[in-house]
């Protein structure tokens, strides 16, 4: 068997070779190197399966879509009598209020932070406005209050919601940076709106789930 003949059948070869092919491989270092290299590439490729991790936003977006499409059903309330009705009534108003607050805040920040009127302003002013200490404190205070509420009702859920809030806050921060680096970028502005909607949804889910 010649090298040309071996190369012609190579695409069809599996792991087993005929006696003729084996003999050629023993006598031809170029062809045996070639087969060894192709096998090494193939073996190494298998290790690439499932080696990458998607960002947390992928699941957030899926969860939002599942809820919007009605594919997720709310679990039935399991022990309604265990929860004092007065407390639940006191906290229940927070659900729509928090959602509305966050959406309004998001819209305000979006309008102030990335609107066309801001383009001419110096970068320093922009940064100072964006990270206004009072605003930041309000957000952090709200987050902590939410976590306290969740923690008091379902302590085991607190860590999960803390992680979610941290992730969504980082998303907001990234989205703000993108929107500010190019205030005319429609996609960046959309990301920012999505980020605030996601945070509103985290609040809604946390309060909805933690209330009786």
């Amino acid at each position: 068997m010649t090298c040309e003949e071996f190369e012609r059948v190579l695409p069809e070869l599996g792991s087993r070779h005929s006696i003729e092919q084996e003999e050629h491989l023993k006598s031809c270092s170029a062809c045996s190197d070639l087969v060894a290299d192709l096998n090494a590439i193939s073996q190494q490729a298998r290790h690439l399966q499932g080696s990458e991790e998607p960002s947390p936003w992928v699941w957030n977006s899926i969860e939002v879509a599942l809820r919007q499409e009605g594919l997720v059903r709310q679990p039935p309330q399991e022990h309604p009598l265990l929860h004092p009705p007065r407390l639940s009534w006191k906290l229940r108003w927070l659900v729509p209020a928090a959602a509305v607050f966050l959406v309004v805040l998001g819209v305000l920040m979006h309008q102030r932070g990335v609107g066309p009127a801001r383009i001419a302003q110096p970068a320093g002013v922009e940064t100072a406005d964006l990270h206004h200490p009072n605003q930041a404190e309000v957000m952090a205070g709200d987050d902590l209050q939410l976590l306290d509420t969740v923690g008091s009702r379902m302590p085991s859920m607190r860590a999960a919601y803390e992680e979610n809030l941290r992730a969504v806050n980082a998303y907001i921060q990234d989205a703000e940076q993108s929107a500010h680096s190019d205030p005319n970028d429609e996609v960046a502005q959309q990301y920012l709106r999505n980020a605030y909607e996601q945070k509103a949804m985290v609040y809604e889910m946390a309060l909805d789930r933690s209330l009786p």
Partner: protein
Amino acid sequence: MTDAKKQQGSKLSEAEAIERAKQGDAAAFEALYSLHKRRVYSLCLRMTANTAAAEDLTQEAFLQLFRKIGTFRGESAFSTWLHRMAVNVVLMQLRKKNLPIVPLEENIETEEEAPRKEPGAEDPRLAGSIDRMQLQRSISALPPGYRMIFLLHDVEGYEHNEIAEMVGCSIGNSKSQLHKARMKLREILRASRAEKATKP
């Protein structure tokens, strides 16, 4: 969600998660996503070579899965069903963008693509010297058609008859494209090694 439910959610077997997801249980959807997200995302990422596109496709693949989960009867493994769906989502996207999935020609091997011999050139084998990052970079440098077949066969482990059915080509074409992809990768990896060797 109650503590008990959350605890159960984290310990759900795949079969239990599937049954619960059919009932609309949020924790079950999340459990299924967690089990399979890495493989689906990795596949999408390598096929598109674009993080944002890969995330969109991953989202789309899982949404399609969850929309259709009620029709899953367990005739095939769930992972097979899901990964096939993910591949279809990616292929659909590539077709929409008119990107080549498989080169049109069947088994036409040009001189450039044929295995090259360099008599007298003493090049040590690649075996043992290929690292993951290097291979990833080389795969993303492959032409899209070759890349698709290589990923489906060598990374995802599909057989040629399955690939032929999925991408709409002949089994012979699938084998031929895979061989060309491996040859191209070998060429890229050897060039990269030679480049490294010349650097001080």
